[in-house]
């Protein structure tokens, strides 16, 4: 149930069988977004970061962990179902049932056991993918929270004291970019995100076609 590595998340990861739960990282994501927005207000060259991060909000790794736990439980149960059918069939000895229809039924038992193993394998793969995805997203949230806090702090310190290498460089780049150029940068960012969306569609398509055969 709780198998697999989980990057720690405040509030933990609730069991998939409990209702509610999740969403404990939302405040961190909104704070991150706020910090990027604050930094971008002082240094317009950072607007790109606001857009880039904004498109990944909201993300809930707890839901992903929950789904991964769920798939893992399903995988175990489906596999156990096939095995117990095979065991029960084998427990009827040839001294009690020996005929052509026994051989035909044995064939069905084998088919069922193979089908349930395929379904269990698919569920296991899904569980693994969701676990990796959940940990990557958690790392992404923490990383951006740290970066945004640092950036906002540097921008604020620079604006107050008017110094600092980071501030000077970012301010110089902000001044150098005209409004049109800044819009161009944002447009390129949107295009990249659309490309990311296409990649996600492709991944979803592949995920469905290649990894879930046993579940159809």
């Amino acid at each position: 149930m709780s198998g697999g590595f989980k990057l720690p998340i405040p509030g933990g990861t609730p069991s998939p069988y409990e209702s509610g739960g999740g969403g404990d990282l939302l405040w961190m994501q909104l704070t991150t977004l706020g910090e990027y927005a604050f930094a971008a207000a002082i240094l317009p060259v950072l607007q790109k970061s606001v857009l880039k991060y904004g498109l990944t909000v909201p993300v809930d790794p707890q839901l992903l962990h929950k789904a991964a736990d769920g798939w893992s439980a399903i995988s175990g149960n489906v596999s156990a179902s096939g095995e117990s059918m095979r065991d029960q069939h084998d427990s009827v000895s040839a001294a009690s049932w020996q005929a052509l229809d026994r051989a035909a039924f044995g064939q069905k038992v084998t088919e069922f056991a193979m089908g349930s193993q395929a379904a269990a394998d698919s569920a296991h793969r899904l569980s693994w993918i969701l676990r990796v995805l959940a940990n990557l997203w958690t790392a992404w949230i923490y990383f951006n929270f740290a970066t945004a806090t640092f950036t906002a702090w540097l921008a604020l310190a620079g604006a107050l004291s008017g110094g600092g290498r980071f501030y000077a460089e970012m301010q110089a780049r902000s001044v150098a970019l005209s409004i049109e150029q800044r819009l161009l940068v944002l447009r390129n960012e949107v295009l990249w995100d659309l490309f990311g969306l296409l990649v996600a569609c492709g991944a979803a398509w592949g995920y469905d076609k290649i990894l879930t055969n046993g579940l159809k």
Partner: protein
Amino acid sequence: MLSDESARIYDRSAIKRLGDALVDDTTGTSPVSHLEEAGVFPPNMRLGWGALGVVGFPLAREHDRIVASAERKLGDMAQSLRGHRDELYTASGNVDTAEMENTENVRRI
């Protein structure tokens, strides 16, 4: 592989018992009870739209579709086990019928 000429053994009660064992859910260890345990999907297993942000929504949507199809698949598997139980009952019933007719034939002769 058995040929038509080889001995056929039918213990009707054993065949019926196998059929019952496939769907019995009192002990929780039968194939159907395992499936039903799996088939009761965790209530929050569907990710919904907000789980992967704007850029990840195709994945979240596809995942939820897979959950729906897996639910159907597990239901079908449980149904097929019930079908197997019925087949075993029929097989056992056929033996009963054959024996009855055999006895009648013998009596007539």
